[in-house]
């Protein structure tokens, strides 16, 4: 699973080179599935994604899930994230030992167009290895997703 993390597509390399165009994107909250992801991590992923995707400047509008205005957007794409694995580390362990206690989360990232066709499908890992609080893994994850969006749009 880790082999396919970040920068590789699950369904082939040809898609990553392809550029799509859309004026607006809607971010959906993280689907934890069967993975026990704490609520604060799910919320931090969602909020960080909105911030980081806004920063890319690729879209005129970045809509939150459920936003009524998104319905009238002509070429809306939707970003879905689904949890694949989550390991909660310990800040104390990380800073004392430097080799253990890292926090890691892997999420599947899907970007679909308004017809439901998949444009981007990748697994992305966010982690914090040495410095910082556990929630920083969500920031790392969303930065990587923002890079994917920059490459794809």
């Amino acid at each position, binding site marked *: 699973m880790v082999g396919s993390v970040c920068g590789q597509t699950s369904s082939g390399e040809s898609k990553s080179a392809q550029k799509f165009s859309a004026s607006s994107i809607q971010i959906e909250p993280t689907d934890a599935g069967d993975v026990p992801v704490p609520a604060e991590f799910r919320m931090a992923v969602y*909020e960080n994604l909105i911030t980081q995707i806004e920063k890319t400047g690729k879209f005129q509008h970045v809509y939150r899930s459920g936003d009524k205005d998104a319905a009238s957007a002509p070429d809306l794409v939707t970003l879905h994230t689904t949890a694949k694995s989550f390991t909660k580390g310990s800040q104390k362990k990380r800073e004392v030992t430097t080799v253990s206690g890292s926090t890691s989360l892997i999420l599947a990232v899907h970007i679909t167009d308004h017809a439901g066709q998949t444009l981007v499908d990748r697994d992305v890992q966010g982690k914090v290895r040495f410095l910082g609080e556990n929630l920083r893994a969500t920031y790392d994850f969303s930065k990587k997703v923002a890079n994917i969006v920059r490459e794809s749009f």
Partner: protein
Amino acid sequence: MGIMLNHRGAGWVSTKPEGYGGHRMTQELRGSTLAYLLAIANCGLKAYTPLGVKTPGQVQGVSCWLGSTRMRDKSMSMDDKVNLSVATNCCRGARALGAFFLVVGASLMFFSAPARGQAAPSVVQSDVKLVIGGDTIKNNSVGTLSVVGSSLQFASAKKKMEVEASSILDISTNEDSRQNITGAAHFATMAIPYGGGRVLALFSHKVDVLTTEFKDANGGYHGAVFVLPQGQAAPFKKQLVGMGAKASVPLAEPAPANK
């Protein structure tokens, strides 16, 4: 014999002087209302003389009562002499009106106080960190979290955010730990030789994490994560759930004591 009624002297001033708190002004206004009503009642009592002598009061029937309301800025003199029967009838009415307004004024004064001001916060916690999710407030801002009325409110030094309890889709609490030394001091500890900085990393404290998921007026989904001192998140959750917030995980009941 005459009654001098000066509205300004009685404090019937509705302009708000600079630096005056709203509450203080309301109190003064309420006090002045009572004083004014007392004066009206007094007017009625003095005007009513059953012995049939010339009565001090306002001429022409009901103008005794009306006159006192019309003349806001003037001192009113009631030295005019009136016909006894007209004055008696008029002033009985004035007395009754005065007594009525006295009762109404007093009831307003004593029973309306809690409804006028903003509801006092029921749960308050200072030194709360908003980790993420404050739209206009910067991440990692420190401020005061409180439940005011029926909403959750976070106020930092400059800005404030408010979430209505009924718009909360889920609220959850969790435990975590945070380092005692953070920020610039934390980087400074890394310079301590022989791994001394790592020893300092052992010192940490437990915290509570309060996570809320809510919708804005446009239906947009939001999340906010707060870090509170240990044991302080549960009262917020309990209070908000009581006000209509939803929680997928019910609040844990305290474990029964072993006997």
